[in-house]
């Protein structure tokens, strides 16, 4: 692409509890950290992409977060908006920012996220259930997020013959990665086994508690610039190679297919855009609301054959030292799921790996990374490809 768009800088605050910050306050905290960490002056940033805050709040969402971020930076951007596609928002931000840079509409676009998962108490649980389901045709049946994701997971296990052990192997591998990340929330809990996952309480079949991501608070920022500026800032930036997206039925009960999560469509578009094949991928970061997602996505993105991902995980091939490392930061299940901001975590990690800045968890061969994110109840999909050299 023209101007060689690349991720020049990334910052993520540790996932956790931030009782003294609302979602907007968390954005400002992310900005603080970002400006402390990188040699970037606010005046060099001329684009801002943000996401709405308060999507689940009583008063409704704030959809002009980009303005508040720009005000805090003290800039008047020539390119800015807030956008929303759930967990897929942030891969789409990087794609939109890259397109703007290639088109000369901006030189440096700050993509920012910060979110809080509402407490899953009695009222909170009902609120999230309403948000996730169709009000008339799904919500009345005791449905909430794990149940809706289980619709695809049940079908996947039935069709491939994989078992809960295969799902549990994902939780085990991601916990192992999280032990190498200083900010991972579950790091202090130590390693787990397949038996531990199976022994944790049932939530909604096939998911036990340890098959679920950990609801937390946090946020991150990613700066996308032209290649020249990115090389000045990072030395070795993570170039944007291409992306693909696909948007399916919002109501899970109306999905045309339950045997896939939907990543095959967006990943095929991403590979075509980047002009590369799945065999060129060194590492993958796959959105993991639940343990079933990385299994299905590794296959749907063409990285492993149908029904083979469980074996890949059980053999340790996705874990440190493995042939195709996946979710090298612990994923949303062990690093932490920062509410609506979570779709940024796997982009931050993929960029750090490509940039060679992943410290203790650095994968030796990490030239090309695939990030797959989803939003809604598996309804919005965005696949992002990053590499250590510009394409075309």
């Amino acid at each position, binding site marked *: 692409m023209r101007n060689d768009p690349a991720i020049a800088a990334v910052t993520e605050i540790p996932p956790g509890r931030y009782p003294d910050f609302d979602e907007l306050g968390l954005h400002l905290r992310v900005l603080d950290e970002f400006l402390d960490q990188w040699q970037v002056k606010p005046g060099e940033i001329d684009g801002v992409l943000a996401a709405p805050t308060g999507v689940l709040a009583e008063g409704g969402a704030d959809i002009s977060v980009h303005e508040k971020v720009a005000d805090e930076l003290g800039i008047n951007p020539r390119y800015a908006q807030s956008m929303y596609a759930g967990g897929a928002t942030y891969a789409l931000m990087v794609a939109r920012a890259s397109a703007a840079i290639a088109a000369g509409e901006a030189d440096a676009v700050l993509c920012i996220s910060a979110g809080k998962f509402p407490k899953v108490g009695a009222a909170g*649980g009902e609120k999230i259930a309403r948000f996730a389901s169709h009000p008339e045709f799904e*919500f009345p049946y005791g449905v*909430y997020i794990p149940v809706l994701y289980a619709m695809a997971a049940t079908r996947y296990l039935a069709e491939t013959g994989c078992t809960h052990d295969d799902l549990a192997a994902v939780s085990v591998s991601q916990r192992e990665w999280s032990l190498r990340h200083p900010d991972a929330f579950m790091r202090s809990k130590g390693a787990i086994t397949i038996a531990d996952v199976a022994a944790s309480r049932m939530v909604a079949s096939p998911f036990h508690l340890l098959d679920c991501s950990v609801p937390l608070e946090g946020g991150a920022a990613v700066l996308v610039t032209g290649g020249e500026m990115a090389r000045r800032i990072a030395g070795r930036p993570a170039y944007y190679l291409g992306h693909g997206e696909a948007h399916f039925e919002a109501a899970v*009960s109306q999905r045309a297919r339950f045997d896939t999560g939907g990543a095959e469509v967006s990943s095929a578009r991403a590979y075509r855009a980047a002009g590369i094949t799945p065999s060129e991928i060194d590492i993958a970061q796959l959105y993991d609301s639940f343990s079933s997602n990385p299994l299905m996505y590794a296959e749907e993105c063409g990285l492993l054959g149908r029904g083979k991902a469980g074996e890949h995980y059980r053999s340790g091939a996705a874990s440190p030292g493995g042939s195709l490392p996946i979710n090298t930061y612990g994923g949303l299940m062990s690093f932490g799921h920062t509410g609506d901001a979570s779709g940024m975590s796997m982009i931050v990690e993929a960029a750090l790996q490509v940039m060679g800045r992943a410290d203790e968890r650095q994968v030796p061969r990490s030239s090309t990374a695939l990030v797959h994110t989803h939003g809604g109840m598996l309804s919005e999909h965005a696949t992002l490809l990053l590499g250590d050299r510009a394409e075309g």
Partner: protein
Amino acid sequence: MTDETADDTVTDRTPGKPIPEPTAVSAPYWAAVDTGELRMQYCPVCTGWTFPPSSRCRQCSTRDPQWRPVAGTGELLTWSVVHQAPYPSYGPDTPYVVAVARLDEGPQLMANLLGADETALAIGTRVRVVFEERAPGRRVPQFVLA
């Protein structure tokens, strides 16, 4: 279906069980359900079915598809056995089954699968719709094994 109405009604008056609020477009669906009949929208132009309800056929965009009875039988596409309820009114039901079935006419419907041995469920298991009364005159469709 009308003859079988008495047999096809179950009652669950647990306080707080959600009762759907019909919209202008879905009102005919819920009015039929409340009398123990399942009706969906059929397009005479393209012979396609539209569900959830809409002012236009979702296959060919023809205006005002016709409301027609469907048999209320179909096969299981997928399901989950829920052990932790999202809100208190479903607490006493745990473990309960949430299922999606494809009706024989084609539309897909989500409901609870009542009274089923969850270890015996498989893709393609036959189910039929019954009507659960949650308040006087207000019902929701549910599944039982056919």
